């Protein structure tokens, strides 16, 4: 199998308050043929073990896993940042974890994931900012845009909490502002196997 459009090599998604439902809705729209890897930074309490992987695995045909250190980033897989760790894309194309201090009061931080992914994937990256109550991800989305990647933000009227999409729209001058359903459709058209 090969992608019809090989231009994009990865999708990064950042979500906070209201993100669980939003990510779930996008995953539900994705066709089983969707084949480029997705990396997700969803804010979650640092003091609990994350059950996000189990939660999302039920909603998608993608292989879902909580990212470990130095996982090769494979097609058709969703990697989720563990609670209390930053998730980065390494220069070797593998995942990297860190316990560096929180960024924007957040660990995992969306900015950390997006900026490192932009360094590695350059213009072959899609960044998506969803519902949330702070401004984490705005700087990261801006960097993706600067590197020539594609930037997408959840439309304000469809976001459970608007602060994060609002900040991202302002910082990055996003390429697309879409409802959740449309984000899913859009991803399907961008890459199909």
């Amino acid at each position, binding site marked *: 199998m090969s992608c019809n459009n090989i231009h994009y090599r990865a999708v990064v998604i950042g979500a906070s308050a209201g993100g669980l439902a939003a990510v779930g809705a996008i995953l539900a729209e994705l066709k089983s043929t969707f084949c480029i890897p997705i990396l997700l930074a969803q804010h979650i309490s640092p003091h609990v073990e994350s059950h996000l992987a189990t939660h999302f695995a039920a909603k998608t045909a993608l292989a879902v896993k909580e990212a470990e250190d130095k996982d090769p980033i494979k097609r058709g897989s969703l990697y989720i940042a563990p609670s209390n760790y930053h998730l980065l894309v*390494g220069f070797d194309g593998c995942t990297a974890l*860190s316990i560096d201090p929180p960024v924007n009061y957040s660990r995992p931080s969306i900015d950390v994931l997006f900026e490192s992914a932009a360094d590695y994937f350059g213009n072959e990256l899609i960044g998506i900012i969803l519902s949330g109550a702070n401004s984490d991800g705005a700087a990261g989305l801006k960097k993706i845009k600067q590197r020539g990647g594609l930037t997408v933000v959840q439309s304000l009227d469809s976001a459970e909490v608007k602060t994060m999409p609002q900040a991202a729209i302002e910082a990055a001058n996003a390429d697309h502002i879409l409802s959740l359903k449309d984000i899913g459709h859009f991803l399907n058209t961008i890459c199909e196997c």
Partner: protein
Amino acid sequence: MNDITNEQLEIQLLLEAIYIKYGYDFREYSLAHTKRRLEYRCGIEGIKNYAEMQHKVIHDANFFEQLLLDLSINVTEMFRDPWFYKKVRELVIPHLHTYPFLKIWHAGCSAGQEVYSMGIILHEESLKERAQVYATDFNESILEKAKKGIYPMDLIRQYSANYQAANGSASFSDYYTADYDHVIMKNVLKDKVLFTPHNLATDGAFGEMHVIFCRNVLIYFTRELQNRVFNLFYDSLIPGGFLCLGSKESLRFADIADKFELVSEPEKIYRKKRGR
């Protein structure tokens, strides 16, 4: 892509300069992490690129000292991941009771929170008097902090909560003296600890360890350096000795992985197999 490659090249040259001039080897640290740290310092100092940073590092030793702090991993807490310490009490401590003399190594101990956490457990388990503890880090100013054992008061609430969640049997306040906005850890937790510089990237093995702790350090290394360090730990442990890693680290890329048995998966506690 071209300018990214040039940027990587500049970072490699900077790290090479640091190694040649000061002897600290960050060349096999994961580049994504290193770049974040360097970017942070660039932002503060208004440095435009890594070539400029390289010049500054070579000519300004004080700047290098600052950068060294930026490049060390100094984020930890007392009883971090309390469930890990519960497991240590349950699975490791009973074995330690069988030895007349104990050696424990905290590799990459940073500001010492882990050393004091384990010190409290050794104290509560009446193992402290027969223990010799080595606490090492490559960064001597961090090591000095570890030795002093002084921590900001505002962290203590979290530390106390962690201690209780790790089945602590006393009150966490029994182990420190409060002084305005800081606390100082009690001497009873320090008198068996030797704080000494050791660089996992360049230095050799320690002998005859019963337990090695190295948590949330190896994630910052490349696979090649991780592999070197795992061999170092293997050589440093007695047969049946325990290796405790951070919860997201594992031996999966180590060429000596099959010479360890997994004692507890979520806590990443391993044990060196006996025999050849």
